């Protein structure tokens, strides 16, 4: 399995950045304290529950959310865009392997390492400082595991598309800024989307891929709603994962033609 080799390579590459991982977990934890204090204050002012979350669920939403940032790699630097601009991407394309699948395999390897470090770190700190919510239904655990995988794939797809814009624009800074804005506000990182009017929240969840990266995995984990609703959320993620990968393949196909025209 050559893709497995790439996944292992992705894992080992990030496993060497130990100090940077530690620094990132520290930063995630500081933001965990900030955001949980804020959301718990909001819940405290409305009799302990807000938008379908109680205090334990909100604290869990925040701390696991901080861990998720690392797992899906929300803010990774635009490596591929830089390689496209410099022309180095030609070396990648010469290999007899599809670039999208190769990058996805490496990203899943990276995510596996992040799962053991970036996700566990904030959860441990959060559990020490706050009352966190442990899922009551057994089915939630496998659902959350699937949801994590789908979230990683969707986030990979978004990042890939932002980077691939460099095939046409050369400077992918605009899409990069738009992506950072969207994943924060529409992803549920700043506040749970259900704080918005329910119609608007529903529209964002269905019509954009961003909530599928942070908001939906967390909703599944804290069991907001019935088991059926958890499955519906997971289905939304599955559809977005398929759509994103299909778009990635098509964009890569056209991008390669474009790159040839440009002369590398």
């Amino acid at each position: 399995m050559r893709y497995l080799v790439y996944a292992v390579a992705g894992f080992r590459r990030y496993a060497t950045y130990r100090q940077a991982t530690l620094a990132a977990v520290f930063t995630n934890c500081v933001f965990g304290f900030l955001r949980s204090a804020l959301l718990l204050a909001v819940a405290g002012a409305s009799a302990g529950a807000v938008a379908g979350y109680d205090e334990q669920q909100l604290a869990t939403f925040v701390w696991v959310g901080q861990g998720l940032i690392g797992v899906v790699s929300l803010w990774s630097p635009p490596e591929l865009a830089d390689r496209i601009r410099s022309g180095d991407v030609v070396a990648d394309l010469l290999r007899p392997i599809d670039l999208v699948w190769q990058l996805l395999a490496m990203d899943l390897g990276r995510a596996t390492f992040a799962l053991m470090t970036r996700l566990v770190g904030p959860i441990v700190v959060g559990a020490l400082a706050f009352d966190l919510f442990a899922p009551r239904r057994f089915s939630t655990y496998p659902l959350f595991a699937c949801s994590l995988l789908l979230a990683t794939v969707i986030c990979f797809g978004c990042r890939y598309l932002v980077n691939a814009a460099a095939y046409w624009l050369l400077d992918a800074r605009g899409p990069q800024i738009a992506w950072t804005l969207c994943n924060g506000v529409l992803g549920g990182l700043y506040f749970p989307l259900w704080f918005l009017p329910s119609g608007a929240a529903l529209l964002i969840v269905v019509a954009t891929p961003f909530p599928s990266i942070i908001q939906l995995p967390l909703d599944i984990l804290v069991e907001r709603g019935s088991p059926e609703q958890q499955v519906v959320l997971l289905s939304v993620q599955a559809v977005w994962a398929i759509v994103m990968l299909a778009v990635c393949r098509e964009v890569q196909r056209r991008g390669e033609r474009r790159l040839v025209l440009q002369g590398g």
Partner: protein
Amino acid sequence: MASGGWCSRVDSRWLTAYGPLVRAQVRSQAQYRASFVIDVAGSVLFGVLDVVAVFVLFRVSKTLAGFTFADVFLMTALANCAFAIADLLVGNVERLRVYVRSGLLDAVLVRPLGVLTQLAVMDVAARRVGRVVVAVGVLIVAAVNAGLALTAARLVLLVVAPAAGAVIFSAVFVGTASVAFWWIESGELGNALTYGGHDFTAYPMPIYGTVFRRLLAYGLGFAFVAYYPALALLDRRDPLGAPAGLGYASPLVAALVAAAAGLCWRRGVRHYRSTGS
């Protein structure tokens, strides 16, 4: 500016040496017009976002730790304004770890100019001006919205507080960037206190847990960026029991924090050994 006195003598040399550097930066960025416009729009949107977050939180909650929307909006606006100014002035020093690793800092050190000032102007992001303009506008709206009983003293405080807050944030930018002199792989560590500090100061201090609050609000002086000035402006008592009018002490706190950051920076520059790359 924070710790400016440590690193640059402000005399006519300033304009002749740094002026062209800044002008060249602005000109080069304006060459890529589309990117420049996108950068400006992006920075403006990020600034507006903080206000949107306050609106959303108050959609589901009437008060926050006993403070109304108008109160919190004023705190957020003050914090936002202070941060935007600091980001414009010295935000670029957060790239210090990149410069240390790549060896670019060696080139900076051999020039007969202040190290910190050079780093600050090396990427004067003209885009960041947009955020300052928006932040000032938002602050005016927030002040009007809060219906402040403006005395002369409060009017002065309304202008001094964002400036003092900007000094505190600048000091935090410089202080956290200095870490890279000792620990090159510190990664995003500084973000916890710079961007985290921005988020921390935007809300009333009573919402935070005791230890966390003591560390950041008093240990680093973050309570004096927006919280205490806002209390003084609103003529409100501190639920935490601090004396009234403590907000007027912001410039003093800012001076202390800036001095501490200046010391860190100086020790860091002396400690610096090139990575040899």
